[in-house]
């Protein structure tokens, strides 16, 4: 069986196409397992995985934990709120202490961009990034790509637009890197104040008009608007955002053709996406969640069993 070039999954930037393809292909196997009455395989038996979550997360943590348990790994959960981090311990000390307990794989979410890079250079465990600041969230992008592949057959030449606060989005960055590597045409849409500097240099198209963005798109990935950002940050009001950039049934109807709608969740109904769209026929939001478990099984398996 083929193995990955990468030792850690810190992001999708610079991950070769063969690796992404291998992960996506392996996911199909694990999806089949998830349909069995007994959803458990012994693949990671004897391996210990720690979920190091320095930032609140429910669905990503549950998705990883399910994936780990279905691979028969021993699982330890660590949440910053209940730990010595509160007592002022540094990230490095925390990681070294956990590693001293002989952990094989660390799944980490952290508010600081590059936290995974920082630790992976100083520790011997394998690292899987479950989201680092505004940098990357590679398993989310992989599950998005998996879902798009199911729906459209191939990512090559597919027109995908990511809509929302691109500047602060790790989901956007990972999707841009992964989709470009896989040959998709990538666009982003949102107000200029939510676009990071010189973004076009990455090779993405930029729309500030959501109807034009929909015209371009075979699929749209609608980002969650961080409600706490509303306080005069990068746009005036949620109402204005919804009216200008919200994905509504009306907009999709005017388009007159099918466009696949993804959302990384959790959704703000009536802000970035209308309920009728989220629950509508073009939405693949729930398949994304199912694929998320399978993708994480594939990543854990490929990273966790790669020879030293």
């Amino acid at each position, binding site marked *: 069986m083929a193995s990955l070039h990468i030792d850690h999954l810190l992001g999708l*930037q610079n991950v070769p196409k063969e690796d992404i393809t291998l992960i996506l292909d392996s996911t199909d196997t694990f999806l089949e397992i998830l349909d069995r009455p007994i959803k458990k395989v012994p693949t990671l038996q004897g391996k210990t995985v720690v979920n190091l979550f320095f930032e609140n997360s429910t669905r990503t943590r549950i998705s990883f934990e399910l994936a780990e348990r279905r691979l028969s790994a021993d699982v330890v959960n660590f949440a910053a709120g209940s730990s010595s981090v509160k007592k002022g311990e*540094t*990230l*490095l000390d925390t990681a070294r202490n956990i590693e001293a307990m002989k952990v094989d794989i660390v799944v980490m979410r*952290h508010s*600081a*961009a*590059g*936290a995974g*890079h*920082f630790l992976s250079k100083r520790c011997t465990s394998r690292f899987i990034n479950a989201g*680092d*600041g*505004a*940098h*990357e969230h590679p398993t989310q992008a992989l599950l998005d790509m998996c879902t798009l592949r199911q729906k459209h057959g191939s990512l090559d030449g597919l027109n995908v637009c990511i809509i929302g606060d691109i500047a602060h989005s*790790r989901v956007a*960055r990972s999707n841009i890197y992964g989709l470009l590597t896989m040959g998709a045409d990538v666009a982003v849409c949102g107000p200029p104040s939510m676009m*990071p*500097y*010189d*973004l076009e*240099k*990455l090779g993405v198209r930029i729309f500030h008009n959501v109807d034009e963005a929909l015209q371009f798109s075979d699929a749209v990935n609608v980002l969650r608007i961080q409600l706490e950002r509303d306080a005069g940050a990068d746009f005036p009001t949620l109402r204005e955002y919804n009216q200008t950039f919200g994905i509504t049934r009306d907009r999709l109807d005017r388009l007159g053709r099918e466009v696949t709608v993804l959302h990384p969740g959790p959704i703000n109904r009536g802000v970035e996406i209308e309920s009728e769209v989220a629950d509508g026929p073009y939405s693949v939001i729930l398949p994304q969640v199912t694929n998320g478990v399978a993708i994480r099984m594939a990543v854990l398996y490929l990273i966790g069993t790669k020879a030293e």
Partner: protein
Amino acid sequence: MASFLFKNARMVDPVTGLDTEQDLLIVDGTIDKLGPSLSASDSEEIDLKGKTIVPGLCDMHVHFREPGFEHKEDIRSGAASAAAGGFTAVACMPNTDPPIDNASVVAYIYEKAKGLPVDVYPIAAITKERKGEAIAPMVELRKAGAVGFSDDGSPVHNTKVLRIALEYASMFDVPVIQHAEDPHLFTGGSMNESIVSTELGLPPIPRLSEDAVVARDIMFTEYVNGRYHLAHMSTIGAANAVRAAKEKGLHVTAEVAPHHFALTDEAVRSYDSNVKMNPPLRTADDVRAMKEALRDGVADVIATDHAPHAGFEKEVEFVYAPFGIIGLETAVGLSVTELLLEQWLTLPQLIEKLSTNPRRIIGLPELRIEEGQRANLTLLDLAAEWTVDVHRFKSKSRNSPFHGRALTGRAIGIFNNGQLVLAD
């Protein structure tokens, strides 16, 4: 009487225009004789064939952390680091605890530095407690020996306070030194805003943050006929503004730190917190603009912004790491490698930026390599090829991004206050 005889050295003095290979005899800390084939009985004789003697280098921007943060650096270790880097004089910034905002702290620093081979001059705060709200007692601070005024680490952002500070300080022959940054644009930033920050998802600091404040400050300087020095200039926009101010004949000077002409923000891709400083590493275009500014005299000074931090403070996530790197022991090597060998500056011009100009700006006596002058000298080996090893630094801290970098040119010693300090 202690005497030293330096034989066969090339002596370069930008003030007198001296550039000759000859001998130099120091008796009792004073240059007694200059000339070919000198000899003196019972003097310590050092052959400096192939080496260069220049007026003592001066770094007008260091953080020696004392009082308050002695685990990072103190005046004694900072001075040792300066000596190892070839500096006979430094000016230390007032972001200490307590800050240098009253005469007793100025006196404390002079007291601590007494007897050292490196002269340590305090720069006092512009505002009380460096809060940016009300100006500090500048006359008292200047009388106590402060050589300039700066809230470095923070900008003076309130325009009323800035105006008063520039007006009031125009009584003196030393400048107001601004850390030019707009606090609103800066908020939470940790690297230069560019395609690199976009790719890495790190919170950005736009060049605009520096550009806008420098442009504004120069307007104020012109309006009140003040004396303004721009600390750690790093952007094309700031360089253009300073260039225009100089063309108008304003009392505006500027310094550039070696890391701002030797590294770009591409280095941040490592997420190594030793490339995190403020102002941040900028783009290749800015680096080129800094070299041009030095060449054209828009930048008067090379100053290190030597900012020590303990390992445990820097060994954290990039966004949580404190800003700053140490620079005293790499400044000469970086300047020679990047500026002299690349022909941006001649050797006399380089010595102006590292000695003559900073001394003039902070009101220190002019140095000359002449008989009868106090011997305040730096000994250089411009051809030395060496590799930076932070573990050999005299500084208490190790936070340098240049570890492992191959450089040409280094200081091999200093002579000041009657003391000869030779590098290891």
